[in-house]
C-alpha cells in the first residue's frame, strides 16, 4: 500500500491542454473517486498515474517514488479497465495469473493467490472458462481478480461499471466497497456517475475542464458545494439555483418573495448588501411549512410521486425549481402553495465567478 501524490500535473495533446496543473494528495489506503463530465480529464489523469499516458509536466509519486519515467509494470499498480481488457484466448485462471507468471512467481504461490482472490469474488467455479463464456458481471469480477492477485500498492479503476446494467451496477458497487474494506489498498477510481462517487469514495475529486473544481468527503461535497457546477453535478435531482438580491437581512427573490436570513448565514453580510446572488437550495431542504416567515410562494407545475417521497416541480417568479417532499404531499398542478426553507442549508454563489461565498 502507498500514498499517491499528483503535483502540478499537466497533459497536453498538441495545443490542447486536457489536464491543467492538478495537485492532489491521496493518503495510504484512501478510496478517492475522480468524477466529472466527459472530457474533464479524469481518465487522462488516471492513465498518467498508470503510466499509459506520458506526463507533459508535473510529477506523479507513488509512495516515495517519482514514477514519471517508469513504465506501467514498474509502478506496482493494478488497473481495472472499462472494457475489462481480459485476454480472450486465456482462461479465467490464466488471465488472473498472467502478471504473476510474467514476474516469475512460483506456481504454488500463484495457485494460492488466484484461489484466494477467486474465493473473495465468488468466481472459483469459473476458473477454467474463457471470458467469452462469462456474463458482463462475471467478467467484471475477473478483471478485479486479476488486479487483486497482483497485491499492488494502488488499484486504479477506469469507469469499471459503465458496461453493466443498472441492477448489476448497484450490486458490483457494493462489492467494490466491501473489497476495499477487506484489503484496504489505496484506490483511485474514475467515473462520470455521481452516485458511484458519493457511495464509494472516502474523498471525491470533482473535475471540470481539466481542473479540480472541489475536493472533499461526500458529505462536504454534497452539503457545501464550492461552486454552482459542483452543486448541479452532485445529487439527483440537482440543486436548485435561483437569482436573489440581498436587501438588509433578507434575500429577495423574483415575484416579490422574501426570505429573512441572519447575518451569520449570509457570511460577510455587510459586504454583500444590495448585491445580486445565486441561491442554491437542495430539493430536500424545502419544507411544506405554511407560515409566512422564511417561506416562498410557489406555483406547482408537475408532481412526480416516487413512493418513498414526492418530487414537486414548481416555479418561484420565473425560476423553475424542484422540491423533495413527503410521499403524501400532493398539491394540484397550477395551484399556489407555500414552501419553507431552512436558511442554514442554503448556499450562496457569486453571479460572475459562480463560486460559493458562504
Amino acid at each position, binding site marked *: 500500500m502507498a500514498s499517491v501524490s499528483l503535483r502540478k500535473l499537466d497533459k497536453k495533446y498538441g495545443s490542447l491542454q486536457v489536464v491543467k496543473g492538478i495537485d492532489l494528495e491521496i493518503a495510504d489506503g484512501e478510496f478517492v473517486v475522480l468524477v466529472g463530465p466527459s472530457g474533464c480529464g479524469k481518465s487522462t489523469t488516471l492513465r498518467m498515474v498508470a*503510466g*499509459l499516458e506520458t506526463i507533459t509536466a508535473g510529477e506523479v509519486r507513488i509512495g516515495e517514488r517519482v514514477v514519471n519515467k517508469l513504465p506501467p509494470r514498474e509502478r506496482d499498480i493494478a488497473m481495472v*479497465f472499462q472494457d475489462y*481488457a481480459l*485476454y480472450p484466448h486465456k482462461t479465467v485462471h490464466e488471465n488472473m495469473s498472467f*502478471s504473476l507468471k*510474467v514476474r516469475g512467481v512460483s506456481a504454488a504461490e500463484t495457485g494460492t493467490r488466484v484461489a484466494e482472490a477467486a474465493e473473495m469474488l465468488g468466481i472459483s467455479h469459473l476458473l477454467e472458462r474463457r471470458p467469452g463464456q462469462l456474463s458482463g458481471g462475471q467478467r467484471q469480477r475477473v478483471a478485479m481478480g486479476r488486479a487483486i492477485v497482483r497485491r499492488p500498492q494502488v488499484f486504479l479503476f477506469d469507469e469499471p461499471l459503465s458496461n453493466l446494467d443498472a441492477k448489476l451496477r448497484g450490486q458490483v458497487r457494493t462489492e467494490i466497497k466491501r473489497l476495499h474494506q477487506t484489503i484496504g489498498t489505496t484506490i483511485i477510481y474514475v467515473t462520470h456517475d455521481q452516485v458511484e462517487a458519493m457511495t464509494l469514495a472516502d474523498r471525491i475529486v470533482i473535475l471540470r475542464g481539466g481542473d479540480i473544481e472541489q475536493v472533499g468527503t461526500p458529505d462536504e461535497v454534497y452539503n457545501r458545494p464550492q461552486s454552482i457546477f459542483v452543486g448541479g453535478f452532485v445529487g439527483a435531482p440537482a440543486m436548485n439555483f435561483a437569482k436573489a438580491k440581498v436587501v438588509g437581512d433578507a434575500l429577495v427573490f423574483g415575484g416579490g418573495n422574501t426570505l429573512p436570513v441572519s447575518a451569520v448565514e449570509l457570511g460577510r453580510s455587510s459586504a454583500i448588501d444590495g448585491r445580486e446572488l445565486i441561491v442554491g437550495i437542495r430539493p430536500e431542504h424545502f419544507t411544506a411549512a405554511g407560515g409566512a416567515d422564511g417561506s416562498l410562494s410557489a406555483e406547482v407545475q408537475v408532481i412526480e410521486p416516487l413512493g418513498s417521497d414526492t418530487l414537486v416541480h414548481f416555479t418561484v417568479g420565473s425560476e423553475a425549481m424542484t422540491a423533495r417532499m413527503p410521499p403524501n404531499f400532493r398539491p394540484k398542478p397550477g395551484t399556489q402553495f407555500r414552501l419553507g426553507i431552512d436558511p442554514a442549508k442554503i448556499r450562496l454563489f457569486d453571479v460572475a465567478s459562480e463560486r460559493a461565498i458562504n
Partner: protein
Amino acid sequence: MAVLSISATDSAKDSERPSPVWTRWLDLSDRAMAVLLLLPAAVLLALIIVYPIGRLVYTSFFNLSLTSGLPAEFVGLENYRIMLDDPVFWETTWNTVLITLITVPGALLLGLGLALLANLPFAMQWPVRLSLLIPWALPLSFAGLIFAWFFHYEYGVVNDVLNRLGFEGIIWFNSPNWAFAAICLTIIWKTSSFMALIILAGLQTIPRSLYEAADVDGAGRLRQFFEITLPLLKPAIVVALIFRTITALQTFDIPYMMTGGGPGSSTATLAMYIHQNTVSFLDLGYGSALAVVMFILSMGVTAIYLRIIRTKEA
C-alpha cells in the same frame, strides 16, 4: 379477454376466405419454401461448378486427343496409369509441392512483418497501407515479367546489386536451382501483400486495452507479441494460409512468364503441365486426368486446414 376473442374470430374469418390464386403456391411449408428460395443459386452453382468438374472427371476416363483425329475412346483408368509412369508428372508435381512449401511460409512471415509495420502508429499510415496493396493488385503475369527483368543476367537489378557488393553475377535462368529460387522469391514478393492485408485486418481487431493491460501486468513487447498478438491473429492467419496454399498449388503465371518451365522442366508446375497437355498438345483426356489429381490435392489441403480450424474451435 374480449379483445382476444374478437381477434380469434377475425383470424377464423380470414382462413375461411379463399386466397387469390397467384398467392396460393406461396402457402408452402417452411422447408419447401427454403428449397424454392435456394433453387436459383443451386442451379447456377451446378452449371458453373458441378457440371465442369463432373465433365472433367468424365473426360479423364477417355482417350481424347484432338490431334489424332480419332473419336473419343473410353479407356477407364488408363490415363491415371500412364501418369504413374510419367516422370514429367512426378517432376512437375514435386515442383508444385516445393513451391508451396517454400512460398507459403515465406509469404506468411514477410506478410506478418509488413502487417506489424503497417499497424504501427505513425503519421503517414494510409500511403503505406496503399503501397501494401500494389503487389497484390498487380497481374501475376505482369509480376513475372518484371521479375524476369530483375533477374536478367546482363541488365537485371539483382545482378547489378550483387556486382556492386563484389559478387559475381548469377545466370539465374540457366541453372535449375537458381531459376527455382528466383521464381520462389517472386512469388513470395507477389503474395506477401495479400497475407499482410488479411493479417493487418486481424491486427486491427485486437483492442488496444489488451496491450495496456499487458503493460500493467508487466509483459514486455516480445512477450505481448507471443502471448497476445499471435494467439489472437490465429484465425486470420489460418484463413490467409488456406487461400495462399490453394493458389500456390495452382501456381502457373509467374514461372510461365519467367522461365516457361525451364531449364528442361525443372521449374514447371503441375498447372503448367496441364496447360501444356490440353492447350499445346490438345490431349484432353490426359490433361483432364492431371487436372483431377490437382483438384484432389487442393481439396485434400483445404480439408486438412478446415479440420484444424474445427478442432481449434472445439
